[in-house]
């Protein structure tokens, strides 16, 4: 459905995109994640066909968006960042206008508008002026104009910005529903949004694609931490300098730090691990060293940690520049 190859975009001296490539098959819901200024909006605007890339190609259903942008725009529904709308128009008139500009034949217009209105729950506000609507309803109007022509691809730029938690849930539900029949690519910098609505995440930082995977899998190869609380089986006093090397020797452990214990006679440690699950080996090690595992708590590297690691501050960036991106 979408194929992007080597996309670059410079605005004068600033490079907004430095060679982004990815493919999205039909029917997928993809999240474009990245800090502000990373290039998410630029990528989407190029895909939507109104910004021309400095180099590289973007194709929607095989149509090159730079070569025939009118044709590609017919296939796409776009919701811009900040959802700009004609404030003075009535909802009904606005959707009429969009339907007309989008070239929906006259005899199908009423039905298509009705369908978009139903899906976005706008029936009660059709006669209202857009400036009178709450933010949640405005977002729905924005979504309605994006789907009125029944496009195969939806490009949503930060669709839940500025909404209150209830409205966010509603819009996300709407997006998920639309995602069942259409291909959706949405951008956000809210991590939980990606986890709840998308089946795939692309992380963009500083104009480059730095990660591409399913949200649950992202970072799973990074491992995580296991926090343990230990006590002695024999009642003998536990000495950290003795226990610690034991833990360090457990296969798969990459680092040991002290952590909170549970009172006298117990010790707490946080163990870092890589790809392996260390819990069984940990159990074995505890048994053979007369240690009792009072608590074993595992935490995967969260998406947030992965995100921050991949998109961290200036210093981190230059260090990671030569590191290969995490790929699916």
């Amino acid at each position: 459905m979408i194929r992007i190859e080597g996309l670059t975009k410079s605005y004068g001296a600033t490079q907004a995109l430095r060679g982004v490539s990815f493919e999205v098959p039909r029917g997928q819901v993809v999240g474009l994640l990245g800090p502000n200024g990373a290039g998410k909006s630029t990528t989407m605007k190029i895909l939507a066909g109104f910004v021309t890339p400095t180099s590289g190609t973007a194709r929607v259903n095989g149509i090159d968006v730079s070569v025939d942008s009118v044709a590609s725009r017919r296939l796409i529904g776009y919701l811009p960042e900040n959802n700009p709308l004609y404030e003075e128009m009535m909802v009904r008139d606005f959707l009429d206008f969009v339907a007309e500009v989008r070239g929906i034949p006259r005899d199908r217009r009423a039905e298509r508008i009705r369908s978009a209105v139903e899906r976005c729950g706008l029936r009660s506000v059709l006669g209202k002026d857009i400036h009178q609507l709450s933010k949640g309803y405005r977002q729905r109007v924005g979504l309605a104009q994006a789907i009125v022509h029944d496009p195969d691809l939806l490009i949503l730029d930060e669709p839940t910005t500025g909404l209150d938690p209830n409205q966010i849930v509603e819009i996300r539900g709407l997006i998920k529903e639309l995602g069942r029949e259409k291909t959706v690519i949405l951008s956000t910098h809210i991590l939980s949004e990606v986890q709840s609505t998308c089946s795939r995440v692309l992380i963009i930082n500083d104009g480059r694609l730095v990660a591409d995977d399913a949200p649950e899998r992202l970072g799973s190869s990074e491992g995580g931490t296991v926090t343990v609380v230990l006590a002695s089986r024999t009642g003998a006093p536990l000495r950290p300098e003795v226990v610690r090397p034991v833990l360090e020797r457990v296969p798969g452990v990459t680092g040991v730090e002290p952590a909170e214990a549970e009172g006298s006679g117990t010790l707490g440690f946080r163990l870092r691990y890589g790809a392996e699950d260390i819990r069984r080996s940990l159990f074995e090690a505890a048994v053979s060293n007369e240690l009792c595992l009072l608590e074993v708590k595992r935490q995967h590297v969260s998406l947030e940690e992965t995100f921050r690691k991949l998109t961290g501050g200036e210093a981190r960036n230059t260090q990671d520049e030569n590191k290969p991106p995490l790929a699916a």
Partner: protein
Amino acid sequence: MGTTLAVARREFRSFFNSPVAYIVIGVFLVVAGWLYFSTLFVAGQASLRGFFSIAPVLFVVFAPAVTMRLLAEERKSGTLELLFSMPLRDWELVAGKFLAALGMVAVGLLWTLPYPLTVASLTAEGARFDWGPVVMGYLGLLLMASSFLALGLWASALSRNQIVGFIIGLLLCFAFYFIDKFAVVLPESVGELLQYLSVDYHFANIARGVLDTRDLLFYLSLTAVGLALTTRTLGNVRQ
């Protein structure tokens, strides 16, 4: 074509749904009407000449007033981005906005029709009111308006700020109107060139009653140049 008309229709309706239309047209009618009728009876001639001599200058101010928000507001509010995502070519958008503006001016001129009707009824016994110059005069005004509107539209595209759009538009229209007034102090050949570029010169020709293709060509070219510049500016704004 359909998309152009859709844009034009939307803009036209939006203009008349807001107080702007009534203020702009209203003020134009009051000023034009006053200036015309205050000299009409003194001159004692049943003709629209008084009206056609002041209307062009008024257009220098009112055309930019009509166009100032057409593109500047879209840029400011971000709705331009929404339009860019539609299967709408840049020139179709520009054409739509232009047609809407022309329509608005046409409505304004429509409201001045009472002038010739009134004056015609005041014609002295035995004399006939000459409708020829009146028709040509209105045609000339429309042609002149179209070039002013095209320039004003370009000015509106240049900024997010309506006021800036108005001022630049005003300066452009002013330049093309007064350009030949400086001919007096310049050498003859330059003076002729300037005269050819003057909106007022061509209008005066038409108002005299003859539609010379040169005058027609002038207005159409100026309009085309304005619209082409607007399209180009929009293309740059997109990026």
